[in-house]
């Protein structure tokens, strides 16, 4: 009985969660003139792919998609590597001033991006790096968020595991790659999703640093759909739906690792 109730609860919650996305999908399929009405003026009969075709027409869609994808993938890989390494150091390698350094790492999360954008722009300008892929990517090479998340995970790995490896004569690099990394796979998979999302949805920084259309990323392209006086909501919704897809795919992929990890970790 309690089980059925719980299941019903999960299903009901899922419906509530699904609702906005369903709404976005429906709006994206609605003819331009009929969007945003209450109740939505949508029937299967007047469904149209206009929103999606307009999306392809009004911007160099595939180019933008390619930019966003590779930047997000590169930044995710960078963040995973740099964060996991730092996490290992902060969890397993004692050194004087470690706490203070970790505080500095965390402190980088505490100043709003809105005031960092201008100084960072000026800095990039002095390196002559404005309007480059590297400039879009730079702020997402390292992530204090990731270091923190992964440090928590590394600290949960029982120390006996490393100690056993040390007895076998393994150095820190081998312990890191052979013992710790496999054990923190759920956290790595989780962070991969967030790292990807952070880059994929990044808006303010690419907006100011990019000026050539060929570097344009998806959030910038979608923002361009909002005119000064009018907005084609069906196109905006089509863009929003499309922009969710890569993250969902990544999520489904990563989720397997989150679950599989226990079986493989040898913790049982």
């Amino acid at each position, binding site marked *: 009985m309690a089980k059925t109730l719980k299941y019903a609860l999960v299903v009901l919650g899922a419906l509530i969660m699904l609702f*906005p996305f369903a709404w976005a999908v429906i709006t994206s399929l609605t003819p331009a003139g009929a969007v945003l009405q209450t109740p939505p003026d949508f029937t299967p009969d007047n469904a149209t792919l206009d929103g999606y075709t307009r999306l392809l027409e009004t911007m160099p869609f595939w180019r933008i998609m390619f930019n966003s994808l590779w930047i997000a993938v590169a930044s995710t890989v960078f963040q995973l590597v740099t964060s996991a*390494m730092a996490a290992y150091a902060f969890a397993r390698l004692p050194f004087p001033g470690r706490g203070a350094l970790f*505080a500095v790492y965390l402190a980088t999360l*505490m100043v709003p991006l809105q005031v960092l954008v201008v100084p960072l722009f000026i*800095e990039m300008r002095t390196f002559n790096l404005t309007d480059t892929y590297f400039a879009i990517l730079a702020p997402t090479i390292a992530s204090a968020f990731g270091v923190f*998340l992964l440090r928590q995970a590394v600290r949960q790995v029982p120390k006996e595991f490393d100690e056993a490896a040390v007895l076998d004569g393994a150095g820190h690099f081998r312990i890191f790659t052979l013992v710790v990394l496999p054990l923190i796979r759920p956290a790595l998979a989780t962070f991969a999703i967030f790292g990807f999302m952070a880059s994929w949805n990044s808006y303010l920084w690419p907006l100011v640093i990019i000026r050539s259309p060929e570097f344009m990323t998806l959030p910038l392209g979608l923002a361009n759909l909002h005119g000064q006086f009018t907005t084609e909501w069906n196109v905006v919704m089509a863009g929003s739906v499309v922009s969710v897809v890569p993250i969902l795919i990544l999520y489904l992929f990563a989720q397997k690792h989150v679950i599989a990890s226990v079986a493989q970790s040898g913790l049982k």
Partner: protein
Amino acid sequence: MTLTETPVEQVAKQPVRPPRKRLRYALTVAVFLLPSAVPLLLFTLIPMAGSLWTSLHEWNLITPMRWVGLDNYADLLTSEETHAAFGHTLYFIAGYLPLVYAGGLGLAMLLNRAMKGRDLFRAIYFLPVVTSWVVVALLWKWLLNPASGIVNWAIGLAGLEGPGWWTDPDWAMPSIILASAWKDLGFVMIILLAGLQAIPNEYIEAARVDGANAWQRFRRITLPLLSPSTFFVVVISLINGFQVFDQVHVMTGGGPAGATQVVVEQVYNLTFKYGRAGEASALSWLLFAVVLVVTIFQVRGQRRWVNYG
């Protein structure tokens, strides 16, 4: 300023090494840290220093900076707008954090056990996290529309009159809290799920054998073993909560009547709309000070409740 939570550990665990080995150890530490430290220094810490410098100036971005010393800070500390902005931000956190943590934990517990379609449900609950705030805000404003929204329609069925939600200064912040908690449930869920995966099943089985009921197992085994993840969620949610911006910017823009004017919304307006970048930077550093103090308290306090196994 240090966040060293276990100074004893360092002294005890750092074995005395001969100089060559010490050098090697230092190199090892450096190799592990530099890949993250260098980019953070270049692309975050240097801009932070830049904004600290900016905070001592009057600057509209398009004319040269003018030195004003600590005037920006003095003005902000005595300004009612600043007090209100911090008040609204705290209000947001006080509503959002318990809601999103309790909800996320409940979800993670529910979706951690075997059930039909579990993976699908997890994906569905994660969907709002990946949907952009532009879409989510539009939707919630529609759901919470005082005149034609579904929520007030349902309240009306119960014979009550629904509030004005985001059009009413008293209800605007609760509306934003509701939408934010809804959107971020999946974020907390996925982190706690990863934490739950790390809890060895035999601990819970052992407790079951000892006759502990479900609540006792949750309270005595799961919750303590989940504490590192909880700690992470609370610290990060607080850091992010203090910097709440996107949802406010797209849902109410700080209104109505300034009721949702949070700190970062003010920072954004000052920098990019009003050409007062110096004050914006100073305000950000005030925010920084608050967040830092709160975080230090948490890190210092974690010894009492966080269990690293």
